[in-house]
Each structure stands twice: as C-alpha cells, then as structure tokens.
C-alpha cells in the first residue's frame, strides 16, 4: 500500500476536489469547474465519478459500484477493484451495506439513507449544450435563469413524437433555481432524485465539472402543462424476481428472439429472490413459449 496515495490521488488534489464538492453542495445544481486529473482509465469510463469517489472515501468506508444497475459488469468490476487496490476499502454489492456508491446511469431501487453518498458518472454535464453550443452563452443563461431553451428541446420532442420522448438524462430544476442534467439515468429514476436522504454528487471528468444535491433537495422534472412528466418503465414484470415496481432491462436470451425482462438493479433482484420472490422465467417457472 505504500506504492499509492490513499485512493490514488494526492492529498492536494483531493482537497481541491472536496472544495468543489462543498461549493456544489452549497449551491445545489450549479456546475462547479474543477481541475480534473488524468486517471488510469479512458474518458467515458467514469473518470469524473472516480475522482469524486477518491475525494470522499475514508479508510472506514464500504464501497459499492454499479453500472446500469449491475454490480457485475466490466466497468463496475474494474472500478471496484481499483479502489480495493488503491484505498484498501471494504467493497460490497449490498446497497444497504455501502457507505459510498458510485453509479453509472441508475439510482438503486432501495431507498438510500442519510449516512450514504451516491456518486454519479456524468458524460455531459450541461443540459443546454445540445441547443446552445457556446459555453459562454450557457453560463450566462444559467446565471440569468434563462431556461426557455430547455423547453424548446421538450417542444421538439412532442412535435416529432407526439409525446416527450426524452427517456434518459431528463432535465430537472433544482430548488426552483438551476436546471441540471441528472446524468443519463432513465427518467424512471427522476422522482428518486428529489428529497433523497443521501448526498448526491455528480462528477464529469472530461468536461471538468462537479455538481451536487444535498440531502432532501427539491428536484422537479421539467414538463408542459398539457404534457406532464411521467416516470415510465417497460410495462412488464421482472422475470427473475417478479418485481412490478423496479426498472427493467430487456435481455435477448436466444437466437429465436426470446426476450427476458429483469431488474436492472442486480442487488435488488437478488435480495428479492433470497426473500423467496420468484419470477416466471426462473428455471422451473418458464411459461411455455
């Protein structure tokens, strides 16, 4: 363990990132610039999230990483082993046992608690970026609360698809002030952003921005009066655990086009199965095709 600083980054860098995090918590939804470091992984693999995690981890923490809800995908496994090696912290896949959870594109199904921190990996932190390419202009729009453009995006959605077709990275307004990109989580997760007991931190490595939601922050998804926000998911039941209320992944299971809907949150699904819940697709429960 003498080969590395605790959690890879040097203390000065971690202090710099913590200052950005504290500023972000003080101004919920505001994007704080920070001096993002080169990390031993490519951009797009969670360099922002990893730096934020490194800055908040203590030796006593228990760490969990999920990628699209799963603990067992490449990205999740690599980051987990990275911190096992560089910080020597305990790791877990159990949502309730973790004190710091780094996530890519999901919020765990199980409600988080006050002593937990949720760290999001963010590819593009600027919600206005797709319509306004100038950074100088988007900053001004944030500072002057000129958010009409955000609704132009939703307007375009409805005019093209008949409904708001944005299904992930759905923009939200924080405490009635800043419009924020919640990272590419499905809009099903949007209602969980608001009034959450845990601290939520967002890190964008390539774009060099950190933003945050302190516990119990008001977060409202943008919409139109005649096209209200809806937290949608696939209209199915988990084939493994039978859950009706969790976000589902659609998995192709054979060459004949067979499909399985199952919880994207693997820990939640396993917990339910251990508690005796069963879905229709478990061996022995298959419905004849």
């Amino acid at each position, binding site marked *: 363990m003498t080969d590395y600083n605790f959690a890879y980054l040097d203390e000065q860098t971690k202090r710099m990132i913590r200052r950005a995090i504290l500023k972000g918590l003080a101004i919920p939804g505001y994007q704080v610039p920070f001096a993002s470091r080169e990390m031993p992984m490519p951009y797009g693999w969670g360099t922002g999230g990893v730096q934020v995690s490194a800055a908040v981890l203590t030796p006593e923490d228990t760490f969990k990483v999920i990628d699209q809800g799963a603990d067992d995908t490449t990205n999740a496994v690599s980051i987990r082993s990275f911190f096992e090696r560089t910080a020597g912290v305990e790791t877990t896949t159990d949502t309730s046992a973790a004190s710091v959870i780094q996530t890519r594109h999901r919020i765990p199904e199980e409600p988080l608690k006050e002593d937990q921190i949720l760290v999001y990996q963010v590819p593009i932190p600027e919600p206005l970026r797709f*319509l306004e390419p100038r950074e100088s202009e988007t900053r001004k729009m944030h500072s002057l*609360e*000129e958010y009409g453009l955000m609704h*132009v995006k939703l*307007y375009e959605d409805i005019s093209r698809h008949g409904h708001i077709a944005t299904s992930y990275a759905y923009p939200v307004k924080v405490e009635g002030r800043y419009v924020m990109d919640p990272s590419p989580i499905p809009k099903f997760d949007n209602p969980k952003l608001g009034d959450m007991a845990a601290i939520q931190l967002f890190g964008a490595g390539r774009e060099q921005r950190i933003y945050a939601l302190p516990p119990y922050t008001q977060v409202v998804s943008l919409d*139109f*009066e*005649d*096209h209200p926000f809806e937290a949608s998911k696939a209209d199915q039941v988990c084939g493994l655990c039978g859950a009706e209320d969790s976000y589902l992944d659609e998995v192709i299971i054979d060459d004949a086009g067979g499909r399985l809907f199952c919880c994207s949150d693997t820990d939640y699904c396993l917990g339910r199965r251990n508690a005796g819940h069963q879905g229709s697709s478990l061996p022995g429960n298959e419905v004849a095709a």
Partner: protein
Amino acid sequence: MTPLLSVHGITKHYGTHIGCADVSFDLYPGEVMGIVGESGSGKSTLLNCMAGHLAPDAGAVVFDTRTDGPKDTVTMSEPERRMLGRTDWAFVHQHARDGLRMGVSAGGNVGERLMAVGERHYGDIRNRATDWLDRVEIDAGRVDDRPTTFSGGMQQRLQIARNLVTGPRLVFMDEPTGGLDVSVQARLLDLLRGLVRDMGLSAIIVTHDLAVVRLLADRLMVMKSGRVVEAGLTDQVLDDPQHAYSQLLVSSVLQV
C-alpha cells in the same frame, strides 16, 4: 408624448478608430426610422449599441419600459436588458441563420420566445406558432420542418415571426432584405409594412438600400464616418438632400 426610445450622445470607439460618435435622436411610438450610409459608416455599430449587443463608450439609450417608464438600457442590469431583448425588443439579423436555431423546427423557433417568458402549455405555444407562420405566409404544414429546408426568403420571414410573436414594441433590423432576390425583397417589404402598421410597431432599420427606406421608413438618418450628417423626413432627405454626402449618396443610385 414620451418617446419610445431616446438616444443621447452614443459614442463607440474601436481603439483609435471611431465606430460612431455622439449620435442622438428620439423615436416615437409607431415611427419607423431608417439609418443609411455606406459600409463602415457606423450604422451597424450604432444599431448594436442601441440593441444592447455592444456596450457604448458613452451615451444613454433610454427606453420607455412598460412597467417603470423611461429607463437607460445601457446602465440597467444585464438580466433586465436581456429580458427586454426577449419581450419588448426584437432584432432581425441580415442573415437568417444568425437569428434562427437551424437545428430546431420552425414551430420551436417561433415558440422559443414564448417559452422564454414562461409559457408552459404545449398546445397553446404550437397554436400561436402556427398562427404566426400563417401571418408571415409560411404554410402551416411546415411547422415541424427545420429552417435548413427553407428558402432564403422563407428563413427571413420565419425570423420575423420568431421575433414578433411576443408582441414587441421596438424592432431593430439590420439589412433585413440584404442578400435576397428582388422579388423576394418586395414580398418581405410588403409584409413588414403591413405588420408595422397593424401592430403599431416602432422600428429602426439599418440598410444601404435607399429604395427599402423609401418604402418602409418615415424618417431617415444619413451616417458618414461614424457621425450623423443629415436627418429628417425620408422623402425630404431623399428628394432634397442638404448635406454634400447625402447628395452624393442619392445621386449615386442607379435609376431603373
């Protein structure tokens, strides 16, 4: 009567070069004023100073706001000035692509100003956008098409619709007919004339085309080297110019 816009001693330097110097005038509700002069005469600098796109070195641009009466827009806070830019003011660029969002549908382009002032009902926004497309003679069936698929004249009309949807009281126009075919120009001029009359708009039009100001403007200001050399009633300045430069300008126009 209170002037809608009262400009006092607007001066803008670019280093040692004079952009415009000591320009003053009053514009009353319903008046259309033309600013003419050759390239580099400072007319665009003046327009940008008045519209809040450029900060003048000296002078005041006092606008008669709906809520607080006359206020200097040069010294007012930026949010307040930008709010004016979305509500009571409109700016029509010479090149439609500078004034439109080319990646957004025609309806979205027109609706943006409505959404910017807090309109949150999709159906209403769309109806008003469609109504405005009709008023600028764009087929309502094209409400979901992007302006990239429009002709130059249609783009310019879309830009006008996008600007006028919030019912502004003052429109700044920078060479609104520049770069268009003459037949398209005529149609646009006719449209602008009708809108100015029906909405009681005041407008300031910068152009180098004397035919445009003769048809649209009540009053004319002739600029040269950053200064106003002559001002007055449009037909009087054009038919009986007093200043040497105005005489040269008028006599230089080719007769058709």
